[in-house]
């Protein structure tokens, strides 16, 4: 250690106050913490609304693929209603949920829902 080091070491560092931690804990008491937002995709799909929407979209897709039937074709309609019921069960949706969610959305689908609820 040279002379300069000895001189520099002569300057003592004061101790930190004994109440430093107490003051700090008081100070942070009212400080809100930043919270990372949860993954937006999973949070959206965990939401009931999106669960219902996704279920409904899947049902609508099945119906679209099969094509709408003439109301007179009762046999075919029954098949679709069965398929629709299966989809409702599969996606764990209540008919009320579907009705509430989509009754104003699509008249044709409303008719299906009516048929379903009346069947």
């Amino acid at each position: 250690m040279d002379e300069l080091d000895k001189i520099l070491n002569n300057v003592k560092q004061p101790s930190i106050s004994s109440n430093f931690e107490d003051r700090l804990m008081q100070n942070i008491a009212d400080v809100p913490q930043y919270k990372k937002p949860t993954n937006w995709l999973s949070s959206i799909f965990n939401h009931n609304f999106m669960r219902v929407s996704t279920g409904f979209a899947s049902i609508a897709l099945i119906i679209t693929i099969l094509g709408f039937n003439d109301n007179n074709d009762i046999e075919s309609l029954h098949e679709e209603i069965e398929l629709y019921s299966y989809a409702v069960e599969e996606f764990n949706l209540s008919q009320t949920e579907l009705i509430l969610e989509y009754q104003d959305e699509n008249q044709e689908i409303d008719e299906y829902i009516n048929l379903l609820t009346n069947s």
Partner: protein
Amino acid sequence: MYSSYTDEQLIQKIALGHKLMFKELVARYKNKLFGTCYRMLQNAEAAEDATQEIFIKIWQNAAKLDFNRASFSTWVYRVAINAATDAKRKIKDEFELVTDIASDDADQIEQLHQQQQEQQIKQAISKLPANQQKALVLCFYQGLSNKQAAEILKNSVKGVESLLVRAKLNLKKQLGVQNG
């Protein structure tokens, strides 16, 4: 109690609001950070305020901290250096040499002489260019390696070595110490 946790593990828990983990982190770093701020500011009160600010920021932003690029230790020393630099800009140079010796008591004279010398050294350190002062505080007073200081200051190891040499030459010149 939580001594087995790494700094990074503590930060993860702190982000979830664990105050005991925060206390553990404070216990680990309060003296190091206070020491760094004190050597930069040469003022205990200002150094404590700066240290409080650093810990409050850690508490507030723990969830944002990402240690993929640097360890917590490197990051927190960098924050301390920056906090002290900011605080220093706000503080006027309050050093005044003690020139009045009111008593002829030998012990008091010795004490005053000691105080006077300390203030001269503090003044000399505070007059160093900012980067030289930072390197001196980290390597000489905090005992960090040149490599650690280089990471903290975002400089090369050679760069830090050069800063230290120049800092010491400057201090020797200011304090009238012979090279040797």
